């Protein structure tokens, strides 16, 4: 390949000479090079342009590909080639311009293949001013084989169609553009006419003639980030895995794109839900329908009312009882002053005692035994005590023990059993006869990720027998509890007073960050509902807000989430 290249470089001056002398000679060269000549509709000059430019372009293209280690025999020529080329690049714009002018003069235009070439050069705008000039001689119509009008040189004359001169900017621009496009450069012509033309100038014809893209090419969103990700992945895990990932991703994208590409699979309903659904406006409000016999508002002007419905009667509908009204309080006992209470107690005790005495008098009950103690032993028993003092003392002591035991037993009997005690405690903690409805509290917490607080939130709710949920989303956490008045109050104290939210963040350095707002918990709403919406207390970890809202929507209370999200201090 290197050899070939060197040969070509050698041939450049020769070619130049050949081009200037005769066309036949050139044709041989071009055939030898294996280049295809363009369709021969054009004149000789047009034919010659193709091979020349292509040949002269070849070294320029090939140069960067030249290896450094060239063989010494060919080194000189190669170096010579290189030496010429840099000098060529600077004047080529002027050269092209000249070529364009020349071409324009010759009426050499409207070849779509060459049209874009002009646009490659910034200075070429001057050429479009050169309006197509018509020969001053008497018009002679010449036609070529295809029936096109040609001039005396055999060049095709392209007559601009005379159209209505439009003053619209759009049309002017369009015309301008058309005028702009029709001119094509004639490198060959310039090379012919200008003795100083340097064909080693490096005008890359293929590059110049690359068809202009008619539309913008936008970079798809996420393309570069994807690429960057890929590179990162590659540096992390190596080539093979990166390839695998790429495969996976492309498959995923394909799978994703596939249903979209099939128009039959696009659900019509999907698009409808995206746009905001508006309530439809009925023809007639349903409550107006029975009054209007025609069923539309049209005859309002005629004032034809359905007098069967407009009557003189007043309806008395069934009154509906409120859903959660506490029972009226039981009648309160008569309130007595302290003095009255004491008096009543005395009277009651006296009456009881009198009753007892009466019964004893009538012999209905046994009179109580005299209470014998060691101190009054001699007084009560007198001489009896002296007969067997040991026995009597024993008796007295056992009687005393029995009395004491009876006292203890009475006290024990009065005590509640463990089950009853448990029940009473429970009643105290959870029972509330006055509230039939369920109280709900909604708390909003910035960060509930700390395991300790999460545990507290969860376990306290369960131990207070509250139902609800704690939904942990990335930015915000919402805790909803519902239950009786007392447990909800206790839980509120836990959330708003007992837990130190500012300290409850997962990593300590974040806590010390003063610029970030401190973690906090606010009571968003507290109110009552007819019955609880949740069955138990659960902690949900949600990845997105939509998922979090779904937790609430499933329970039928999406408004809790909405409110908590929309609640902010700045509203206040």
């Amino acid at each position, binding site marked *: 390949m290197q050899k070939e290249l060197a040969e070509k470089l050698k041939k450049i001056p020769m070619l130049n000479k050949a081009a200037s002398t005769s066309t036949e000679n050139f044709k041989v060269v071009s055939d030898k090079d294996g280049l295809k000549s363009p369709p021969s509709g054009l004149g000789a000059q047009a034919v010659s342009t193709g091979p020349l430019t292509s040949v002269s372009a070849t070294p320029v293209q090939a140069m960067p590909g030249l290896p450094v280690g060239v063989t010494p025999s060919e080194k000189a020529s190669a170096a010579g080639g290189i030496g010429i080329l840099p000098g060529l690049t600077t004047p080529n714009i002027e050269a092209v311009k000249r070529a364009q002018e020349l071409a324009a003069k010759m009426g050499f235009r409207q070849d779509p293949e060459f049209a874009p070439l002009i646009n490659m050069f910034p200075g070429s705008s001057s050429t479009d001013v050169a309006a197509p000039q018509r020969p001053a001689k008497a018009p002679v119509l010449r036609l070529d084989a295809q029936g096109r009008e040609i001039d005396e040189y055999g060049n095709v004359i392209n007559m601009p169609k005379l159209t209505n001169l439009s003053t619209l900017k759009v049309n002017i621009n369009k015309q301008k553009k058309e005028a702009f496009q029709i001119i094509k450069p004639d490198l060959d012509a310039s090379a012919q006419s200008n003795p100083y033309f340097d064909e080693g100038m490096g005008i890359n014809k293929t590059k110049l003639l690359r068809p202009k893209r008619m539309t913008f090419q936008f970079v798809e969103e996420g393309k570069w980030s994807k690429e960057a990700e890929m590179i990162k992945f590659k540096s992390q895990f190596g080539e093979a895995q990166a390839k695998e990932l790429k495969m996976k991703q492309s498959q995923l994208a394909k799978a994703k794109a596939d249903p979209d590409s099939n128009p039959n699979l696009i659900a019509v309903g999907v698009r409808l839900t995206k746009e*905001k659904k508006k*309530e439809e*406006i*009925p*023809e007639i*409000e*349903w*409550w*107006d329908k029975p*009054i209007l016999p025609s069923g539309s*508002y049209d005859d*309002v002007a005629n*004032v034809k*009312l359905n007098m069967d*419905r*407009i*009557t*003189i*009667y*007043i*309806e*008395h*509908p069934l*009154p*509906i*009882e*409120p*859903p*959660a009204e506490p029972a009226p309080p039981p009648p309160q006992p008569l309130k007595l002053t302290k003095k009255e209470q004491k008096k009543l107690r005395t009277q009651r005790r006296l009456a009881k005692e009198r*009753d*007892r005495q*009466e*019964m*004893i008098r*009538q*012999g*209905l*009950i*046994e*009179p*109580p*035994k*005299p209470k014998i103690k060691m101190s009054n032993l001699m007084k009560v028993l007198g001489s*009896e005590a002296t007969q067997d003092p040991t026995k009597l003392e024993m*008796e007295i002591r056992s009687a005393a023990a*029995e009395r004491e035991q*009876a006292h203890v037993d009475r006290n024990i009997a009065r005590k509640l059993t463990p089950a009853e005690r448990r029940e009473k405690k429970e009643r105290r903690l959870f029972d509330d006869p006055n509230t039939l*409805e369920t109280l709900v509290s*909604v708390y909003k917490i910035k960060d509930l990720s700390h395991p300790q607080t999460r545990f507290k939130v969860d376990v306290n709710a369960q131990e207070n027998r509250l139902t609800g949920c704690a939904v942990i989303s990335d930015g915000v956490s919402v805790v909803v509890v519902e239950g009786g008045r007392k447990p909800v109050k206790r839980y509120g104290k836990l959330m708003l007073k007992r837990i130190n939210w500012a300290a409850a963040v997962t990593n300590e350095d974040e806590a010390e960050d003063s610029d970030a707002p401190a973690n906090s918990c606010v009571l968003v*709403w*507290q*109110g*009552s*509902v*007819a019955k609880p919406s949740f069955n138990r207390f659960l902690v949900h970890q949600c990845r997105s807000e939509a998922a979090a809202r779904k937790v609430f929507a499933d329970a039928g209370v999406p*408004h809790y989430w*909405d*409110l908590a999200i929309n609640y902010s201090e700045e*509203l*206040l």
Partner: protein
Amino acid sequence: MEEDEPQTLSSSPAPGPGSVPPAVAAPPIAPIPPPPAPALLLRARAVAARADSDSDREGSAPRPSADDYEVSEESRLARERQEKAVQELLMKRRAYAMAVPTNDSAVRARLRRLGEPITLFGEREMERRDRLRSIMVRLDAEGQLERLLKAHEDEQAAASAAPAEEEGPQQYPFYTEGSQELLQARIDIARYSLARAKSRIERARRRRDDPDEDEDAEAEFVVNQAGGFALECSEIGDDRPLSGCSFSHDGTMLATSSWSGVTKIWSMPKVEKVATLKGHMERATDVAFSPVDNCLATASADRTAKLWNIDGSLIRSFDGHLDRLARIAFHPSGKYLGTASFDKTWRMWDINTGTELLLQEGHSRSVYGICFHPDGSLAASCGLDALARVWDLRTGRSILAFEGHVKPVLGLSFSPNGYRLATGSEDNTCRIWDLRKRKCAYTMPAHSHLISQVKFEPQEGYFLATASYDTKAMVWSAQDFKPVKTLAGHEAKVTSLDITGDGQQIATVSHDRTIKIWTSRFNEKDKAMDID
């Protein structure tokens, strides 16, 4: 203890067969034997009964039913005697506990009912009462309680003397005939409301179809503007807590009612007192300006509503309610006034004649709030039965009953768009009801205390405002029901609020006796944002 003692004591003489039965006062001081097994005790007692037959201390012991031993005559007599004594004692106790009328006439009446002579010769009140007592005790003992009870019932029935000739429970719903004026008013309302409904529907349709109108953008703009509500002015309204407020239809006047019974009218841009309306004997509970002309109505706890001119002269008083009034509302035509009362009814009055057109029952508890549909076709009432009822004023039917609130509903408002109804309740929620779908559209957990008043913005209903006893009022978007602005400034319960016709100003009144005016300060902010 008392029951147990005689048993142990009675068994104590048994082990000592030789001992003489001692006197009642002095039982033998003997070592207390361990209580014998029941069977043993029984036999021992039987033996003892046979042995010392003259003992009269046997009665309290349970008697064996078996006749495997004969009982001596004396013992039997003694036992009977004792039983009789016990009976007497119990009877006496019961007599003491029995409720006997103390009034002499009641005693005589009771005696007559029982078929006894109402008085004996030389008998005084106390003796008569004692006689009644003894008779009652005897009857009670004979098991003639029913007779007694019947006598008692008769007495009660005679006392109440109510005819109460109802044949079973009332069948609901039932209908009663109203007055001719009511029929005329219904026809009038029908004509009025149908025209309004037609124009409203047509307008909504036109707005929906018109490509130049963007309802969403307009709503968003209005809501954004509502986010700029800020305290404009605060004025002490009265010496007592304020209960209600209302803007006049052109927004140039504001009326406030207070617990002193006085209603005051204030000129609007700067709140200056124009007139004082004195006339109510009790606290005034609400005030409402007429939607068409410059007159206003006040409701009061003295069971009347009054209609006033703005110069402070009384036009008319509407008497008829049986209990204190709560809220009042004008019909959009301005010809009728609705009043809600604690006598479980709401009534509709003719403004011009002052007649009571309609007395509407239907709530099982007191009615607190009332509101009219912008068309004038419907009325909504709410009350302490946690219910909002929608009534068709033309047909007189209760067409909807919205159940959903848990606690009393205190405020309600129709949206100007004609199919939304907002209710605020003691359960701290505000519910939005859809009249067309006949169900709850949204529940707003709104405040931390009860919601005393709800009002839609009267122009298009793009936002609504709620007043609450948590000392705040809040503005909510009516599209997505998100909080837009909290109007915090009052120091006590906010009892009522009103919005001007153009939706630019909100007035709130509170138990802290101040009127606060909130104005939208959005314009400057908007411009600033535009520069950005």
